[in-house]
């Protein structure tokens, strides 16, 4: 039996692109690279309008505090420095670069000159930071900071290839087509943490990925592939740690507090590319899918490529989309501008039509069916949370641990009354934060 957790739901998988090879996108004419793509401080641009930049050249960095640099994903000329409004409401600066199609790599980029065994953890942390690597599963926490804070505290290294969101197959394809990158990246992390075991978690709806990874690592005692049950949200850090180690991560704590550290497989592959190829994080795999997309694909995309270019690469639209989702349909953000660029955290772009996102013609009244309660991976009572939040009784939601909610959306997904439960919970959390109530 594959390892799993209590609660969670079975979502319709829609893994239409599970057998679609990764293809490089037609080089875009321009890229619009956001200067804030991760948790932490936004970057300050270090290039000027009109300046020629090369592929892999740093175009923005953070002077102090949490954050990591951003690099040009193509070679060309900086056309303008503009801004857009992110789904979070934040104003984010973008560097727009016009492609000269020379694909000229910055000369400073070079693989590490030393063997892994003689490289210190601090040196690797530097390499990872300079490569601008942040979590590629969606939460976009700067990877160097994660490594730094976890060193010496962890006994278990988990590589997350669960990919539990519907539609997305980017990790699946990465494991199938570039397993050596994941494996080498894992070795680098084992070396950094001084650990002798890494667990690679893959949901059991990807038997081929499990087989390939197991085959690749069979002579390696330090790397174990662990199939996990196909269930949403299996790829959530908390649920994954619990499934593999039985440890429960309390709200407000980091995985390192329970001796674990979790990296997404594509993040791990990026660490490999940074160390062995000297490449910063300037491209990523994006699943482009949804019922409005003519030909769903897995694309290798330079960071900053417009969402429009991605959809055009897939043959365009067959229906008028209602939603354009950055990420999975369960936790992704609804976008409103086709011109925005792909970021380091964009695992998928989904164009979903009206028919695909059903609504319900009845008033949204809770019938107390309890589906949300059994769905909740954090073991909350979402029906009560939503009811209290709706009435503005935020303190009561606090007593019911509203802040433990990970906003996975399982409750809203299941609700037969179509109550936007997670949104009520977000409102309650925001109200509590605004009041400054301490945990």
């Amino acid at each position, binding site marked *: 039996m594959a390892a799993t957790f209590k609660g969670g739901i079975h979502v319709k998988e829609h893994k239409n692109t599970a057998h679609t090879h990764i293809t490089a996108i037609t080089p875009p004419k321009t890229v619009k690279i956001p200067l804030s793509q991760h948790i932490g401080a936004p970057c300050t641009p270090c290039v000027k309008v009109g300046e020629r930049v090369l592929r892999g050249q740093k175009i923005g960095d953070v002077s102090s505090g949490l954050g990591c640099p951003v690099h040009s994903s193509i070679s060309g000329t900086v056309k303008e420095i503009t801004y857009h409004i992110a789904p979070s409401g934040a104003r984010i600066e973008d560097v727009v670069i016009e492609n000269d199609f020379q694909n000229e790599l910055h000369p400073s980029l070079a693989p590490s000159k030393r063997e892994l065994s003689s490289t210190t953890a601090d040196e690797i942390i530097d390499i990872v930071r300079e490569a601008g690597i942040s979590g590629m599963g969606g939460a976009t926490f700067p990877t160097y900071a994660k490594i730094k804070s976890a060193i010496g505290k962890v006994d278990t290294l988990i590589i997350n290839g669960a990919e539990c969101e519907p539609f997305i197959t980017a990790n699946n394809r990465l494991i199938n087509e570039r397993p050596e990158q994941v494996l080498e990246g894992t070795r680098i992390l084992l070396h950094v943490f001084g650990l002798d075991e890494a667990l690679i978690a893959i949901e059991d709806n990807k038997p081929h990925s499990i087989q390939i990874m197991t085959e690749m690592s069979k002579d390696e005692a330090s790397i174990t592939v662990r199939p996990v049950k196909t269930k949403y949200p299996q790829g959530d850090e908390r649920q994954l740690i619990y499934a593999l180690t039985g440890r429960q991560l309390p709200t407000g704590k980091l995985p390192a507090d329970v001796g674990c550290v979790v990296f997404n497989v594509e993040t791990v592959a990026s660490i490999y590319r940074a160390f062995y190829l000297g490449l910063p994080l300037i491209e990523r795999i994006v699943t482009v899918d949804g019922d409005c997309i003519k030909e769903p694909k897995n694309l290798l995309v330079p960071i900053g490529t417009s969402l429009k270019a991605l959809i*055009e690469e897939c043959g365009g*639209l067959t229906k008028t989309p209602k939603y354009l*989702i950055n990420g999975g349909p369960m*936790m992704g953000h609804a976008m409103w501008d086709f011109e925005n660029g792909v970021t380091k955290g964009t695992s998928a772009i989904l164009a979903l039509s009206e028919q695909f996102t*059903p609504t319900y013609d009845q008033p949204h009244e809770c019938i107390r069916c*309890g589906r949300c309660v059994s769905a909740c991976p954090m073991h909350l009572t979402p029906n009560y949370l939503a009811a209290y939040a709706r009435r503005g009784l935020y303190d009561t939601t606090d007593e019911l*641990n509203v802040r433990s909610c990970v906003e996975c959306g399982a409750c809203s997904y299941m609700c037969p009354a179509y109550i936007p439960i997670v949104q009520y919970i977000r409102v309650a959390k925001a109200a509590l934060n605004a009041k400054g109530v301490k945990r």
Partner: protein
Amino acid sequence: MEENKSVCPVEFPEALTVAPSPHVRHGENTRGIMLDVIIALMPALIYGIFVFGYRALILTLVSVASCVFFEWGFQRITKRPVTVTDLSAAVTGVLLALNMPSTLPIGLIVVGAFFAIIVVKQIFGGIGKNIVNPALAARVFMFLSWPSEMAGYPALDGVASATPLASLKSGDLSAIDFGDAVRMFLGVEKSGVIGEISVMLLLAGGIYLLVRRVITWHIPVSYLATVAVITLIFPRNGADNFLFMLAELCAGGLVLAAFFMATDYATSPVTKLGRIIFGIICGLVTVFIRYFGAYNEGASFAILIANLLVYYIDKFTRPRVFGAKRKRKEAER
């Protein structure tokens, strides 16, 4: 890109909808759930009509029509959104009829429907807000108000006979054999309200609800198991332990109550442990009333009493949040 654009069959829209995640849904809705409950009740209802004749059908139709009408009328008068298409009023109508003897005067079932929908459901805020089961509350209300009309069980085969429950309570049971239990299970030579006749068909409906995941096993299983254990240990009137247990399980509206009445979402707990406790309370009170109460049947009262405890059951069985320490350990720290 130009050649790509020319084959692009649909233009990029100028506006997109921005909404909070999740952006997809399971697709099941309240109406579908209620429809499943109605489907699950059909075998028992059709058999009831077969046994008791066209009058059972008329009572059911009047009951459903009245329930839907009262819900529609109340919502129109109070200027609330009309929700009769969610079918919850129709479910109440069917359940109400199934809990009536087929000889009931037609006028009375309209009164019952009024009590269920207006007094029990709408006054408390409509679907999901009522604190007791509307159909059961109406049944008990009518039972207390018109006791003789509510006990008019038709004689079968031209011989006036007591219902099995009445026999269990006061008769001599030393002669009860396995065949009696089987007949009660199948619903032959048995009298009672329209919907409680065939345990087999009620079970079929219950299993349908379980398979369709409309209900979970917790309430029916804990309810029936509680009744089974007590009746097995303490048989009455000289009966064999096992046969008495079978007879008690098949008698009256127990199976109807356990699968269709006790599992009513609005009036049962939302947690799994809570549902098990709820079922046990229902079972205990049912048996106590059957053994010691003035009435033959205890299921209706049992569920109504348990309904009133639901908020507290939910509160005390609230799951421990993932990652939270157990209370005792917290105190030690």
